[in-house]
């Protein structure tokens, strides 16, 4: 049977390529200083959704919450095979912690309903919390299965997946609707198809069109933008107001050297080092 699948993805700063000042003084991310990429775990989530659609039929909708430039992530999702995408964007969502973010995303998912499966990446490389998936499942009132790396089978309203545990793995069967979080041990994401790139490269949001002084694209090429009012989110549950946690202080990593001995890569020096370690009983 065909499945309606909603995928959540996040555009993240490429934290492996930090240049300039990474953080603003108020403790939030200075996204301008870093190249923005599709969060890696979310690519695996999208791939799992697309593979389920390939096998069973259905529709894959991908949503992202972010600033206007996150539209580029949505285009990438279209290139890879998503059927529909939408950008949840609103200044009033800024500085949301995971609780506020999951509240907003839950409203967005309900706005995109109906759904059989909600699929997310396990965690994002900027916050590294792995919290939004489970919190979203709670707000949607559906079961969650985390650390999924294989979608084994689906039959009607029952699905079977394999997930990693600390001790090994488990094969779990559950009912739909259900939320899955997917790790990078899942099947590798497919490449965007040239055909879809040609088809969707002109897709843009109304915001992007205005910024380029271009006409707002027709329906097929218009990437929808939803703000907090569109998805009927209560403002006091969003942004700082809806975030119990806040950053008190951030410190850049400062490397301090202390009692450092440089050893030449030559036999006598190395023998000296080993001798010292034997003398003080570090080496038995």
């Amino acid at each position: 049977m065909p499945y309606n699948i909603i995928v959540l993805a996040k555009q993240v700063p490429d934290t492996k390529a930090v240049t300039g000042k990474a953080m603003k003084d108020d403790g939030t991310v200075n996204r301008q200083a870093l190249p923005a990429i599709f969060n890696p775990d979310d690519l695996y989530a999208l791939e799992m959704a697309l593979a389920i659609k390939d096998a069973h039929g259905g529709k894959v909708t991908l949503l992202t919450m972010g600033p206007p430039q996150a539209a580029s992530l949505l285009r990438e999702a279209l290139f890879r095979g998503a059927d529909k995408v939408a950008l949840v964007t609103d200044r009033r969502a800024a500085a949301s912690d995971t609780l506020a973010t999951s509240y907003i995303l839950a409203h967005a998912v309900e706005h995109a309903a109906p759904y059989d499966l909600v699929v997310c990446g396990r965690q994002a490389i900027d916050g590294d919390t792995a919290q939004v998936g489970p919190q979203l499942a709670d707000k949607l009132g559906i079961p969650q299965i985390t650390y999924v790396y294989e979608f084994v089978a689906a039959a009607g309203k029952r699905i079977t997946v394999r997930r990693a545990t600390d001790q090994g793995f488990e094969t779990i069967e559950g009912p739909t609707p259900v939320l899955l979080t997917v790790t990078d041990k899942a099947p590798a994401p497919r490449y965007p198809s040239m055909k879809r790139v040609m088809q969707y490269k002109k897709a843009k949001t109304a915001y992007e069109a205005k910024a380029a002084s271009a006409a707002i694209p027709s329906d097929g090429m218009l990437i929808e933008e939803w703000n907090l009012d569109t998805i009927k989110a209560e403002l006091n549950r969003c942004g700082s107001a809806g975030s119990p946690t806040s950053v008190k202080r951030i410190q850049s990593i400062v490397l301090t050297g202390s009692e450092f001995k440089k050893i030449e890569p030559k036999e006598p020096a190395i023998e000296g080092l080993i001798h010292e370690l034997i003398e003080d009983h570090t080496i038995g």
Partner: protein
Amino acid sequence: MWVYIEQVGGQVADVSLELLSKGRELADTLKVKLGGMLLGEGVEPLTKKLFSFGCDKVYVVEHPLLKRYETIPYAKAAAELIRKENPQIVIYGASAIGRDLAPRIASTIRAGLTADCTDLEIGDHEDPVTKEVHKDLLYQIRPAFGGNIIATIVNTHGWPQMATVREGVMAMPDGNNGHQGTVVRFRPELTIKDVFLKLLSEERKEHTVNLKAARIIVSGGSGVGSKANFKHVYELAGVLGAAVGASRAAVDKGFIEKAHQVGQTGTTVRPALYIALGISGQVQHRAGMDESAKIIAVNKDPDAPIFSIAHYGIVGDLNEVVPMMVKAIRKRV
């Protein structure tokens, strides 16, 4: 001040015991009792061990539907108990279960949660906007942003303040003493409607790599260059009777299995001697070994961050240096 006690098949997880030592410290600072939250079926016998590890109280939450871990029944039961008793702080081990459960509880009770803390302290906080001063908050300290910064996070919206901490980050206490405590029994309201998932099969792997217990660890990074070249790491470990570790980069490149990974997302270790070969020393790796008593680093790059925490630094090619080290060690035998 509560610690979530993770148990699987009647065994208390090491990380929960480690958190009890930190929990004791925080409870003493706050002058409150240390509580343990223990969920399961037939788990009351474990309370004796928990008292000896420092718990003043153990909340025993038993129900047939809690026999095996599943998110929704566990989250529901825990949320009921937390709502009833209103602890200031609840901390959880950031195991696969902890990372599945803690956010679900946080969402249910609308509490703040910080993941993978590397330190916890008590302190005051002035709200930058309202200027209101919150006293005795939990400082939740963790690397973030790919490890490029250390963030201190606070929860200003009330109790409980919750955090998860990975295994190995806090020290394991002595389970000594004959410390006594009280058992508080709590029966949650759960029905079969709260259970959704069915376990079809599971497989457990035996842990053959015991990095945490090793006195000496020889670790290889991406600078080792290949799986085959890890032979240098194995050889040096062999003559020292050491365990073999690795950086995440080496694991991701397929040089060695993940069980050997040292670092924030691997194992945290505190050996007497840590030898880092071809490891650049990214923050996430350093977080997993920087409390080693002695650190020797071998790297071609004189600017590698590992040198900033090493006690002995050798700027050179490990392919030449390691054989010299092996020879010197064999000589004294």
